[in-house]
């Protein structure tokens, strides 16, 4: 099967990738673009380690085929910090110890980022719902909830200031 030419906007930068059509968005990000921040935990959509934003929606990148991503705007964990400044969500994850081994963290961050895009003031229950597809075997869920609440608060306060 011949390669397809894939046009993407990744973390704000347009790029073109020649890719075998059987590749997943996860493989394109990691292997073609060198964005290894997005992790593979299962390759089957069970764990959420590979969650990225595709046109504003949180998706498991391992379940998206290359052609399905044609023309999409993708945001990965590498796209959260701006000019070396951590995104409030990233800062809150550090401050609240919302990570241990860190392997689920990129996917967890992107699920939370997607949540806050649509819901800047989520309840703890809404946060738990948003990360229900992100497995964390270290068991950081409670700290993640607190980190998201804290980031949402600081973002709202910054906006009103």
């Amino acid at each position, binding site marked *: 099967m011949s390669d397809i030419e894939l046009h993407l906007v990744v973390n704000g930068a347009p790029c073109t990738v020649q890719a075998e059509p059987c590749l997943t968005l996860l493989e394109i990000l990691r292997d073609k673009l060198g964005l290894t921040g997005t992790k593979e935990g*299962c390759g089957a959509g069970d764990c959420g380690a590979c969650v990225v934003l595709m046109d504003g929606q949180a998706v498991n990148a391992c379940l998206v085929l290359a052609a399905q991503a044609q023309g999409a705007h993708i945001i990965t964990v590498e796209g959260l910090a701006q000019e070396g400044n951590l995104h409030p969500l990233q800062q809150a994850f550090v401050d609240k110890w919302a990570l241990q081994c860190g*392997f689920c963290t990129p996917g967890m961050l992107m699920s939370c980022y997607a949540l806050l895009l649509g819901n800047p003031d989520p309840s703890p229950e809404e946060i*738990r719902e948003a990360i229900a597809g992100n*497995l964390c*075997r270290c*068991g950081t869920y409670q700290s993640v909830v607190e980190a998201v609440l804290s980031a949402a608060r600081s973002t709202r306060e910054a906006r009103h200031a």
Partner: protein
Amino acid sequence: MLDFSVIGKPAPANRSRDIVTGQARYCPDIRLPGMLVGKLLYPKYSSAIITRLDVNSARMLPGVVALLTARDIPGENSYLYALPADQPLLVTDIVRYQGDALAAVAAETEELAQAALDAIKVEYEPLEGLYDVLEAMQPGARQVWPDRENVYDHLIIDHGDIDLGFKAADIIIEHTYYTPLVEHAFMETEGAVAYLDENGVMVVYSSCQAPHRDQIQIARALGVPESRVRVITPHIGGAFGGKDEAHVQIHTALLAQSSGRPVRIIRSREESILTHVKRHPIIIRYRTGITHDGKLTAVHAEAIGDTGPYLNAGRDVMNFVAATLSGPYYVPNARLEAYTVFTNNPICGAMRGYGIPQASFAYEAQMDLLARRIGMDPLEIRLLNGLDTGMQVPTGVTIREGRGMKACLQEAARFSGWKGRLNETPQPAPHLRRGWGMASIWFSIGMGRGIPDHATATLDITLDGSVILHTGAADMGQGAHTALAQMAAEAIGVKFETVKVIGPDTAITFDAGPSVASRQTFISGNAVLNAAQPIREVLLQTASELTGLPVGILQLRDGLVLAEGERLSLTIAELAIKATQENRCLHADGFYAMQYPEPLQPNSYAYAPAVFTFGTQVAQVLVDIETGQVTIEKLVAVQDAGQVINPGGARGQIEGGVIMGLGYALMEELLVDQGSTQNPNLGTYLIPTAKDVPALIVKIVEIPEPFAPFGAKGLGEPPLTPTAPAILNAVADAIGVPLYRIPLTPERVLTAIVSVPEIFPNNGS
């Protein structure tokens, strides 16, 4: 409370900024020029003779650069964790479980590597495997090994007089408990990357818990001196005991040696679940004698562990089960037995808790049944029998610091509102039953007497007053590096931010032993203190000379020099410069080995540990008696920590442990049929999600441990162990039926409700 400036204070996890920005590199993120993809061939059967293994046509395929079978291994074809070493890296003539590897291939791409595996011709003569542990114990049963009994080990720990103990009892109860086979499910599967560097050294990036042990194993398999092997641990995506023994790092190095090119092997999730060691499924027969007024008189417990076909840590885990089965209680007479039994099921070994999750499940379920039988509150029976400082336990050890047991019990009762629970409604809806349960545990820190248990740590202070800490201790996410950096900062007197942690890298860090047994805070922590001591002395001596003040009144703190608490205009950086000018050494290695304060009793358990920690958890549950669904309404976890080093890290270890324990209680069971795992993925082997976990209430008891660094003892494993029995006891309380088996799936709970008459009234008393 001691006046610390770094210990016990909030500090971010080491390298957490790398993690949240996606810059942290784990094994699968390492890309080297010309790197090949390695894969292993696994068998079709879990018990079979290999009659033909033909790799010739596979070798000829395009893109295949190296293909190894057992005969191509230049050195020892063995994992060396267990002695005697019994598990081959690549099997020769017989398959003993589903995770045995037959061949290893390195090819230009993943697809070509898979094509090569598919082209290997294997013919088997299937054998009737042994899959039932009780059947394997029968006299005359077929043997997994021709030259070894299926019952590989039978440990008996005898203490006091068991017959007299049961004679002194007013009531004796006996039950049998069952625990499931459980999977680690670390989020990063096992992986390694290996290449031969320009000096002829095999460099191996390994997602592991024991880099220095890896180094030895790799060298022996390659047939090269250990000095020609360098193991580096990159970021590790969780381990929980499952990356203690080597997994693919030896095969990866063998392929790199054979191909002359960099190679990486990353296990798929399914390969991971099918191959690595598991938490033993254990059957525990438990007989306890008690007086009417609630004093334990005797315990006789027998634990049978299905350890699979290879030794790994199986016997050591089972011995730990026996050594712990009397629980955190004073038991004057005990016989504690453990059987390590070979089968063709998955290999069992180290998993967070190392046998204690199983033991504590049995002794705490039994404790509640005893309480009900004599009409005593579960809290009271535990307080009455709880261990304390100075008491001797069945392994012959006297507890050096044991106040944590009752302190945790009392705190757990207080924060859970234990005494007020009877005022709450036991039946909030016709189909719902509410219940409460508690469980207490004891847990030993360190490997145990007779097992090497030491660490070296290295400290350097630079001329700007910052500190470099070299450690060979793997941090798999548990926070060891953060805690060690805090201890180094406190011990020398610098700010936490100025400490840089480097390692593990066997080329530049010394052996700290494996990151297991909740030991690194204690052992490597003491090594850090021993390294800090001479550096601090040099700095203080230099400060004394510069100021003309006696050493005795000087302090180093937060990078500054103080005299009787008053800050001087002198920094540690200035001291470092001056000390260097005076030709004084600002580098030190610290060594520490676990110390055992007393000789053991004759005939006692050989590996008896010296340091114990305690914990109590309380669960409040709601059971839907129409569906069997269990909802956790409240979980209170109180853990003895000695001294908290990092509040965020400590809380994370406790919450994470509780969540893993919740999975153990309610949902986790690896299903194996005829040696073949039926749910080898995360869609069918379910672990807790954010929605399965209630808001957790965590409290820490701090009673400094003697000989521990700043009084701190390990926290990695203990918090997992009371959760399952606390939940089980709560469910039993809710439905009024005793339960003997986890996980408490809805089906199992419903079966208990409909098949057993209510034998004790709802809600205690």
